[in-house]
């Protein structure tokens, strides 16, 4: 065993400095990883929930006067961003149509078309049925303003125009009802 030539330091049983340093370096890392286990990093919370919904003025699919957000106030609003090429949108479409019909005047349903052609949408609605207007969003400016990551995404806006809730992915009956209540739908 080689003898220390210079800088002799009596070897202690436990080098406390190393222990402390190691712990200080490692503990925050381990804590951060542990706290994030189980969370899906691709799902991003919307910063718009709880704030006034962005204003828009969009042309309806079947022509007519442009629709503004202000004109839709007074009732809870379900704003559904969708497209015909999106499989989950196809899955949730019947639910939205039947809910719109069932709720009648108690809530308003509006679709916003995301990156699609008019003919495709018209053909789809003709085949699958529609119960509420869909608006065209050229260049997806409104989708960007609403912070859309993909489709389908649905915003639930209350009577005063504040965003009460957001739903990412296809809607199911339970979520639709729960989030409509959050937007102030009277039972």
């Amino acid at each position, binding site marked *: 065993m080689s003898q220390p030539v*210079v800088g002799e*330091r009596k070897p202690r049983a*436990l*080098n406390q400095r190393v222990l402390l340093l190691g712990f200080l370096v490692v503990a925050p*890392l381990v804590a951060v*990883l542990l706290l994030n286990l189980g969370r899906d990093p691709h799902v991003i919370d919307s910063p718009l929930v709880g704030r006034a919904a962005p204003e828009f003025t969009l042309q309806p699919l079947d022509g007519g006067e442009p629709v503004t957000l202000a004109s839709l106030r007074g009732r809870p609003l379900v704003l559904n961003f969708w497209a015909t090429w999106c499989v989950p949108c196809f899955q949730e479409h019947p639910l939205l149509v039947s809910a719109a019909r069932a709720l009648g005047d108690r809530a308003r349903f509006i679709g916003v078309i995301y990156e699609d052609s008019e003919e495709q949408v018209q053909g789809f609605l003709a085949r699958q049925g529609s119960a509420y207007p869909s608006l065209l969003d050229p260049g997806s400016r409104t989708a960007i303003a609403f912070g859309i990551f993909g489709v389908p995404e649905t915003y639930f806006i209350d009577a005063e125009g504040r965003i009460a809730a957001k739903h990412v992915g296809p809607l199911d009956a339970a979520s639709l009802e729960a989030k409509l209540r959050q937007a102030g739908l009277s039972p």
Partner: protein
Amino acid sequence: MTAALGRNLVLLALLASTVGAVVGSATAARGSAVGWAWTRRLAYLFAAAMVAANGLMVWALLARDFSVSYVAQVGSLSVPNWVAVVSLWSSLEGSILFWGLVIGGYVGVATWANRDRHPEYMPWAVAVWLACGAFFAFLLAGPAQPFQTVSPVPADGPGPNPLLQNHLLMAIHPPFLYLGFVGMTIPFGLASAALLTGRLGHDFLRPLRTWLMLPWTFLTVAIVLGGWWAYEVLGWGGYWAWDPVENASFLPWLTATAALHSALLSERKGVLKGWTVTLVLATFLLTILGTFMTRSGVFNSVHSFTQSAIGPTIFVFLVLALAWSIALLALRIDRLAAEGTVEPALGRDSLFLVNNLLFVLFTFTVLLGTVFPLLVEALRGVQMSVGRPYFDRMAVPLGIALLLLMGVGPALPWGRATPQQVRQALVPPLMGAALVTAVAAALGVRRPWTLLALAFGGYTLQVTLRELWLPLARRRARGESLGRALVESGFLRGRRRFGSYVVHAGAAVVIVAIAVSSTMGTSREAQLKVGEKTQVGAYTLTFLAVDEVSEPHREAVVARVGVSRGGRELGVLSPRMNQYERQREPIGTPAVRSSLFEDLYLSVMNIDSASGSLGLLAMVNPMVGWIWAATALMALGSLVSLVPSRADTRP
């Protein structure tokens, strides 16, 4: 039947490694020859079981045996055979099985190579290796089983992710990556053995360095291959995006490079032994962190596998490995006594410390940036991003500093350098710097960081070439012919030195090429109809035609673009847009024309065969090919320096 056999092989590997770890530890504590023999046998058994399990899986993939769960998951009747083999590592369970193959191979070879040497260290080392192997065998037996039986047997499978079938590079990038990553287990075992015995002498520093440099070589190649794959396949024209999984492979590379330099100083001067061992342990720990980052689903990355139960399991192993390393260091680091001193003045010794400082700082910065979004999420509940702009900003000064250090360090003599020696060493290479800078300025380079990178690159290359030339010059002075001098000084006698300087030369070129390619490129976006032209750099591009191509696993729309420069026709490039059955968005494949100094890179943004319209992204990327070529040079230099000399083969 196949699945059951595979399961049994995995259990055999688990048994062999667990028992072997125990026997090895007992042997090391008591020093028994019989114990050592059995430890070795169990190590070989572990290796054999893993090799056999992998061989079985490859056979099952080729035979399209869908009764095996992993084959049912990634196999397909409609993919070519090479894709079937490559699917071994394309999905989670298979990649763990492949990890098992590599660790089994390394443990087997490393045990055999050291069977008659370093008797006081080796049982500890093998025990640690087998403990790590046991963890991966446990994963294969528990959370990530590839050999489950599927009943009823499906008729076909979905095939691997289409992105992974696009390019041949997919076949070689993961194996190189695993050979690098997993290989870091071996120096981890050796470093642990040094700490456990309380000794790290000259005799053991050599194998530690060798077994660190071998996986380092593979990891270097793997990281650059990943960049090359991204460049050739993804279509955005870049090769590195600082994605968390990319960073996961880069972090251990940084500490391993620091460890290689620190080990050299330890070998020569007998100092910094504890620090070298710490760096080696950190390298292994970063590989485990890296695999956690890739497989846990906690990090937002395009590369990550889907979430599964494996994340928490790897996390537990990571915590255990961290605890083991810190405890071992705290208990034993003081016993690794220094045998000399680092010269406190300016000289090569002290610059080794600067090297380590820069590499560790780089590691810290990349790790901080990668983990930071998770920290903010935990503290503020807000999701934020630390992306490419941040990392580029941090990496540029660090890379350039390292480039300069590669020149200044080897220029100075060992030990204390007198001011006169410093001047004699550091002033002449300024000529190289000035020459390269002048040429660059003449070619139109104006950006300050790029010019600085080129200047430092010229400086470092002159120093490196001089160091490579010196032993040649001495032999020539004694009358040897040039050819014989080259062979003797480079390959027969001074391999370590020669190989190391070749690696430095390659690394300098890589850094300069990265600087030039990321700042001196031009690009153009154009919407073209058939017959229209556009210009990018010196090239004229003509949109000739649209073709539709049907392949078994994808439909593609191909743009035929004619390329000419200075009136001379250079050929036709065919970038394409591929539509895979399972993906919504089509995935483009770029077309790249590489020449000596630059790449012409074409990518399809949008294409419509009906209307004959093409949205084309055209780029001229200078010196990109130099990155790949210089990396190959680094690998060759490293392999040359790894060939063992007589000193290594003595017991």
